Each structure stands twice: as C-alpha cells, then as structure tokens.
C-alpha cells in the first residue's frame, strides 16, 4: 500500500507512520456487540416515565381536511395529549424543507399524500397511543389526485401545492417544484457532430432502501435548561440539530443535543428532519416527559421516503469511429408530495450524468415534479442509478449501431489516468483514477468475450452479459455550505485512545477505518482505540454520513487529529530520551528511535508522564522545549475542509459538485427463463478505483451489499399505487426484498488503489458506488440475452414475460 502524504508540515510525520492496521482486515468495531445482541438501537432504550407517540396519518392521497375530532381519543385512559396542526402552529416555522419549503409538520387544511401526518397522540404506552389514534375522527373532502408526472404536467392537472411558490428563485408553476439545466460545449445542438444518434426513453422505479431498523427517536426536554436531548436513528446528528433549529421557533442549535444510538441502516432516508422528530421534541416539552416514537413497517413504507422515479428521454451522438460527441437529456423526476433531497438528486445526477466519459457537448434539462405520493429523498446512489440506467443502455445501443464492441466504445471514450488531474466537460475535478484498467479487469473477470452476443444454456435459458460504469461523487457542499469535519483524538494516562467524531455509524463501518488510521498514527494496538460518534454535546462539528464522505472527510480529520497527538507524544518522548523527536517512531505501543529501536519507552508510561506533567519526570518548565511548557495536552485536534468541492453554477449546471470521484465498472451475466420471465443473475464482477483501501473486508462488505440492494431494485422492487394514490404493497410480504436464496454470491471484486492525493491516506468514497451501475448492467445483460431492450424498472417477470411473448421467445 502506498502512502499519501498530507500537505505541509504533517508530511514528515506521515512518512514515519506505522502501517500495522491500515489496509488490514480488522474486525468491525461494533461487531462483537451486534453478534451478541448487545447493540443499543433507539427502540431498545427505555427512560423512566417515558411516553409514546403515535401518528394519525392521512388515508387519502389528496384531500381537504375539514375537521379533526380528537375528543374520543383524548378521553382514553393513559392518553396524555392529542395534537393537531393548530396545537403546534406557533412553535414551528412552516412550511419547511431541506431545499424547498414545502412540508408541514402536521397537515393544516390539506393532505397531499396517503400516510402524511395529521395528528399525533401521546400516551403511557405505545398500544394505548395507537388505539387512541384510531379513534381520532378526520373529516376529509376528497380532491383529485395526480400520481404520474404526465398527469401532473397537464394544463388542468390538480395542483399538489396550489398556494406554494416553493422555490421563489426558480420560475416554476403548476406542479413543477424546480427546474435546472446542465450546459456543456455546444449545448444548443449537442448532437451536431454525430454520425449516429441513438435515442430512447427510460423509466425508473420508486423504491425504498428499507433499512431493517425503522426510523425512530426519543426526545427528552429539560425544563430547567430549556434544552432537549434527541436520541435519533439518523445519519447526521450535527446537521439534524441545525435543521431542527430552523423549524422549531423556540430552539436554537445549542438547545438541541442530538445523540446517536446504534443505527440499523440508513441508506439515505435517515437524513431528512422528519415530522416525528419535530413532534417528539415539542411533545416532550409540553409534557415534560421523555417521548419516544418508532415507526412501524407500514409507516416506513408509506412515510419513510425512498428513491425518486425518473423519466429520462435521452439521445446520444457518436461518430462512426466510436467517439461520443454529445448527450441530450430531458430528466423528469416524480419527487412525490415534498421535494426533500429531490432537487439535489436531480441537479447532482445531471451534473454527473456524463459518467466516466469524455462528452464534449451536453444538454440536460431537469424538472422536479410534485405528485400525490410519498415524498422521495436521498437514497444510496443519489440519482446516479437512474441516469446510469439510461446512459449505459444508450452506450450499448450506440455501440451496436456502429458495429463496435460496447467495452471498446467505453474504453475509447474514457479519461486517461495520465491526463489527470483534469477538469471534466461538466466541470468535475478528476484525480488519479484508472478507469481503463477498471473496464479491462471487469471485462476479464466476467469473461465478456465468451458470453457477449447471447447464448442458450443447456437447460434452455437465454444467457447474456452487460456492463455499467461508475463515476460517483464523494462529498458535497450544498447540504451545509461547505464540506468539513472536525475530530478529536484523546489519550488517557494509560495510553488508551478515544476518537470523537461527528461521523455516524449506520453499519457502513467508517469508525473501524478511522480507528485503524488513528492506531497507526499513534502506534497503538487497535483494541486500545475507542470511538465516540455523533453526540452534539461531545463530538466536534461535522456533517455525518452521506455521499460517501465519511472516510474521505471525517477520516482525514481524524487522521490529522491523531497526527497532532502523535507530535505531542514524540516531543515528550524526545525530551525524556534526549533525542530529536523527528527521529522517533510510534509503533507497537512504544515510542522509539527509528534507527535504534532499543532506545525507546512504552507508550503507557509516556502517556502517564505526559498526563501528569510533573517536574520530577520532565524537569521544570524552563528546562523543557517550548511545546512542553504551559500544560501538555493529550488531546489532538484535526479538521478537514474540502478545498476542492464547488457549488455548481446555477446557469450552466457545471462545476466540481463533489470533493472526489470514484470510478469503476460492473458487469453482470444473466440467465433469462423463457418459460417464466424470471431473471437469474449468475455472475457479477466489479472493478473500482477506490484509492487506498483502509480495510478490505469492510470495502467488500459495502460492495456486496450495494450490488445486492441494486439487484433488488432492478429485479423486483417497486412502489405500486392505485389510481387514487394508495400504496398497494406497503409490507415486506407484498414488497419483495431480496433474500439469500434470490441473489448470487458476489466474490469477483477487484479494487484498484490509486490514491487520492488530497485525503489523509489516499482513500476515496466506497459505499454507494457499486449500486450505481447495477440496474443498467442488468438491463444490458438482458438485452444481450434476449434482444429485447427493457427501458423500465424493475425487470420483474410480469413485465419480462409478456415482452418475451411478443418477441416470440416465450416457451411454454
């Protein structure tokens, strides 16, 4: 593993860093608690005197709320309060929202999707709250519903938000929440130089990442301080306190302490500030008792948010020789009844829609459209799976059209590592990535040449291979105005280390990687390093986990903090051993002279001496070097602020939207059953350039999990609404999530380690990337097998079989 250096002063320190832990298959930090049942998720936490909240949710997708009669519910024994919008109106800034202000905490006079919060009951226990919620009588007047983008854009369409100008800076009307564009090169005629133009319209599906642990929180208000402690299953504790303070009129950021419990998966949908969190805070304040709310699975399906379906009308232009010259795309996003992160999903995926290719002329026109469906938001991949589903199919279509192999076409149009760092056509700063090898390795691992062109297996299945590619953002600054994290690494007198970080743990394992980096820098065994995560009273500021930023930004901050502490330890050891601190190395629990390992001391002794700072051991302050006077602190501080990430230009949509980018390719071999329309994924291979790998096991775990999540979305998952906007499959029984029997083992994983020169250890983002190309590669493989181009997700048997029938391929 090569070592990347921090800029400036820390370079020398890094050269000496031990590499005992980074790059190793260290067991996950939390794993022993999890396997033994001693995790502590929010629903596991009990507080004395705690109340339980339950929501009354709209039964209709679009209706006026004429009256809410809470009297019967209020009369129930054990019920403390029943609230409607009027009860909270003066305590919240409404409407609110992440980018557009289009949400109410509890519906005032209209509901815009089935599942929306109308009232909340708080009671001594959950069953009582739920039973009482059933007794709240809501009088509705039904309104016409729009559930598709086409309906929503019709001139006389019912309006989801008739009184709302959600984005005053954007000239939108009707059901259009937001519009944007990306303009690159000759954007007015991006296909002018093409010999061949291929066009197709693609429709992606609405899905939920369905973390196994539902959303939930406990709010505990302290009347003496006016502060509230919120333990919430969130991906971003610090940002949550910022965002909640913007909604709650009587709470400043300092009044809201967010604390992370263990979080049972997030995948993006645990980013938004949710009505249940806002209500729990206010209910705790009103009752002066702790209030818990944990969503049940039906609530997760109807109100837990998910991935936005998009319609992508795309045209790609190529020359006869296989140069991609232009891309022209209309992107329509069905964002649901509130945009949440939908606008960011739309603009960042259009900005990155060119993928890992050089495409000199592009024109993207994006529209985010309201409908009467559950709001959508951030989900692993953040819009890239949708645009990649289009782009990678257009590329394989174009390759066929000009008689070129689809991998060759990709290779010809990919950026070269030797040309980096470079600005891409849409303005990304690409650094040190080897996409050529990613493509070649993937082709080799999947046996592309053997499978390509389609074949029939001995048991009569139609076999084919297809590919998709990755150019995925790591980090972003529109969420918070900058992309940064701070970290503290502290040592006690016994030499035990604690890392304090705002990075959340949602299963992805960032803390394990951070502990490895810190252990190496301080030369301590990994089991002497603990992590405190996401407690806004205790951990320094940072933005949480999303956009693959944890290890890049949070990890780099922690590495810097460890360097500062290491410098102090070396200064103390140098003084005691009477050697130059620069000649010292920290490793194996000792500080010693690099060239003379016998000269050294144990770290726990060193920690004790430094902690006490007595003249008996260190001499008087006057006898010490400058840095050991005035108190020796065993607290290291580090901060990482991305200097690379930019705000995209609102006019052109161009700009370096992320800190860094992870490149890669993925290929899939499928067998399509001509009798049933079922698709069996028989092989998957992926090669990505993830920079230096901190922990190969954890990287593999992310890769495998992301691919299978992508396969579930591509093969079966979809929200099915009836004409009235009611969800038809809101349970795990009706919404099929992949099981161990459904999906292949994913073992063909190759990680290239071309380091990112800007991060502490050369690391790049990992967790979201492998999901991005999966639906595209699957559809391409099915085309190779059948000759049928599936342009809609999912590729479920009830769509595939009729198409096979029509093509004369069905066998009975």
């Amino acid at each position, binding site marked *: 593993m090569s070592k990347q250096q921090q800029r400036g002063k820390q370079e020398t320190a890094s050269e000496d860093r031990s590499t005992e832990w980074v790059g190793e298959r260290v*067991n*996950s930090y*939390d*794993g*022993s*608690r*999890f*396997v*033994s*049942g*001693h*995790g*502590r*998720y929010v*629903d*596991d936490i*009990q507080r004395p005197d705690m109340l339980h909240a339950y929501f009354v949710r709209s039964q209709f997708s679009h209706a006026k709320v004429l009256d809410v009669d809470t009297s019967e519910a209020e009369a129930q024994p054990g019920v403390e309060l029943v609230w409607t919008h009027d009860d909270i109106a003066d305590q919240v800034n409404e409407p609110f929202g992440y980018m557009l202000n289009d949400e109410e905490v509890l519906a005032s006079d209209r509901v815009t999707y089935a599942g929306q919060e109308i009232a909340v009951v708080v009671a001594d226990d959950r069953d009582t709250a739920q039973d009482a919620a059933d007794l709240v009588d809501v009088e509705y007047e039904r309104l016409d519903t729009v559930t598709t983008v086409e309906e929503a854009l019709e001139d006389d369409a019912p309006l989801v938000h008739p009184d709302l100008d959600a984005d005053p800076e954007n000239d939108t009307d009707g059901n259009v929440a937001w519009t944007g564009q990306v303009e690159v090169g000759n954007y007015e005629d991006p296909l002018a130089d093409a010999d061949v133009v291929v066009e197709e319209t693609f429709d992606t599906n609405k899905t939920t*990442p*369905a*973390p*196994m*642990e*539902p959303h939930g929180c406990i709010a505990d208000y302290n009347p003496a301080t006016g502060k509230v402690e919120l333990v919430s299953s969130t991906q971003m504790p610090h940002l949550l306190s910022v965002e909640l303070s913007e909604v709650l009129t009587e709470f400043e950021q300092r009044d809201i302490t967010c604390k992370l419990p*263990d*979080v*049972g*998966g997030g*995948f993006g949908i645990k980013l938004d500030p949710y009505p249940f969190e806002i209500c729990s805070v206010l209910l705790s304040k009103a009752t002066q008792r702790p209030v818990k709310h944990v969503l*049940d*699975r039906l609530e997760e399906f109807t109100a837990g948010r998910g991935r936005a379906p998009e319609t992508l009308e795309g045209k790609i232009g190529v020359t006869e020789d296989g140069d991609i010259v232009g891309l022209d795309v209309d992107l329509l996003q069905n964002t649901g009844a509130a945009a949440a992160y939908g606008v960011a999903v739309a603009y960042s995926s259009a900005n990155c829609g060119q993928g890992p290719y050089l495409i000199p002329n592009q024109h993207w026109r994006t529209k985010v459209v309201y409908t009467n469906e559950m709001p959508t938001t951030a989900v692993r991949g953040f819009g890239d799976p949708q645009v990649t589903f289009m782009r990678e199919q257009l590329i394989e279509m174009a390759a066929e059209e000009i008689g070129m192999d689809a991998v060759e076409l990709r290779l010809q149009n990919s950026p070269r590592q030797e040309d980096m760092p470079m600005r891409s056509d849409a303005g990304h700063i690409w650094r040190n990535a080897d996409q050529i090898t990613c493509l070649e390795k993937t082709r080799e691992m999947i046996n592309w040449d053997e499978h390509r062109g389609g074949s029939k297996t001995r048991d009569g299945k139609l076999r084919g291979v297809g590919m998709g590619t990755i150019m995925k953002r790591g980090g972003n600054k529109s969420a918070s105005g900058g992309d940064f994290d701070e970290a503290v690494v502290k040592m006690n007198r016994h030499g035990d280390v604690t890392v304090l970080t705002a990075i959340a743990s*949602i*299963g*992805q*394992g960032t803390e394990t990687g951070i502990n490895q980096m810190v252990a190496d820098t301080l030369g301590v065994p990994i089991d002497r390093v603990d992590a405190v995560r996401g407690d806004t009273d205790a951990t320094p500021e940072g933005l949480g986990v999303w956009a693959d930023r944890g290890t890049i930004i949070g990890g780099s901050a922690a590495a810097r903090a460890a360097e500062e502490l290491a410098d102090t330890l070396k200064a103390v050891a140098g003084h005691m051993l009477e050697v130059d601190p620069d000649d010292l190395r920290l490793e194996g629990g000792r500080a010693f002279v690099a060239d003379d390992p016998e000269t050294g001391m144990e770290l726990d002794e060193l920690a004790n001496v430094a902690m006490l700072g007595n003249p008996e051991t260190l001499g008087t302050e006057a006898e010490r070097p400058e840095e050991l006077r005035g108190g020796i602190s065993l607290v290291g501080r580090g901060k990482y602020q991305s200097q690379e990430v930019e705000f995209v230009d609102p006019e052109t949509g161009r700009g370096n939207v992320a800190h860094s980018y992870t490149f890669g390719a993925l290929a899939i071999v499928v067998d399509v059953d001509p009798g049933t329309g079922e698709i069996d994924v028989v092989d998957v291979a992926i090669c990505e350039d993830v920079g230096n790998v901190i922990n190969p*096991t*954890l990287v*593999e*775990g992310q890769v*495998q*999990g*992301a*691919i*299978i*999540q992508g396969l579930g979305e591509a093969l079966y998952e979809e929200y099915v609404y009836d004409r009235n906007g009611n969800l038809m499959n809101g*349970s*795990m*029984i009706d919404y099929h*999530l*992949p*099981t*161990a*029997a459904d*999906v292949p*083992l*994913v*073992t063909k994983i190759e990680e290239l380690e071309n380091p990112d020169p800007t991060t502490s250890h050369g690391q790049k983002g990992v967790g979201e990337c492998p999901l991005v190309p999966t639906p595209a590669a699957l559809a391409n493989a099915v085309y190779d097998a059948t000759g049928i181009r599936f342009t809609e997700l999912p590729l479920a048997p009830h769509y595939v079989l009729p198409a096979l029938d029509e093509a004369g391929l069905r066998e009975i």
Partner: protein
Amino acid sequence: MSTETKPSERVTVETTLNGTEVEQTVPAGTLLSAFLRNHEYLTGTHRGCETAKCGACTVLVDGDPVKSCNMLAAQVDGATVTTVEGLADGEDLHPVQQAFWDCHGSQCGYCTPGFVTNVVALLEDNPDPSVEEIRSHLTGNICRCTGYTKIIESVQEAAARMDGDGK
C-alpha cells in the same frame, strides 16, 4: 391457555429463558417479542416488520427457530427459550457469533441476532451445510446491508470451526 382467553386477561408464563427459570404474568395478547423486549429487557431480539417476514425477531423455542413477533408469550409456557443473549458463554462468543464477527457477516447489526439464532439451529441439524442449504435455510431472514455473501461465509466458517471438518 385456553382459546377463550381474551387478549387483555392476564396469563402467567413460566419458561426457561437463556437457562434461567422465569415466571411472569402478562396480558394474554402479549407477543413473545414484546415479552422478551419489554418484560425481560432482552432487546437483542429485534423488530423489523412484525409480520413474520424479516426474521429479525428470531429466537429458539425448544431449539427450533421461531419468529417471536408471530407467537404469543403464553405459547412458550413450559418451553425453553434461547435468545441471542443466551448463546455466548460469559465473554466467550458462541462460535456462530464469533464467525459472524470475524467474517463481517454483520454490518448495522439489526438483522444479526435473527440470523445468528437461526444459524445455530441450522448447524445443530446439519453440521456441514452446502451453500444451497444455507441459502434456503435463511430465506426467512432479511438483511439489507451485507448482500448475504459474507453471511453465507460466516455460516461456513462457523460450521468448519464447530465440527472441524471444513466446508
């Protein structure tokens, strides 16, 4: 309990829970998952769906894996119940737990207790299962994080460690 019992009536449940005799009087409608979590404070048994689909609430009743959201506490009267907390021997993890940790068969950990208990039952019956047998045994447990590859590897590793003959 008789089939006439109303959910609000109270019933006494006597069970051997993780090796200890337990007697509790609870409303007759109490689910086993709620009994374990709310009355015995064994919160390792998780709730993911409460519709007998996800397997996060799997426990062993007389050695057989059952979904505790789909069973009344009263139904384990007289039975032996083992939850994920009852598998370890003091600080020593059960070999299945250790293998899930070592092979990274657990990421967020929410599904893990259900998988671990179910796998303990599998290896009891079939000490050397094939990949296909592991897969089909685990269809009642959903994991959203791992994609299952490392779960299957964890099971194989546990099997190898427990009977020492590999695969």
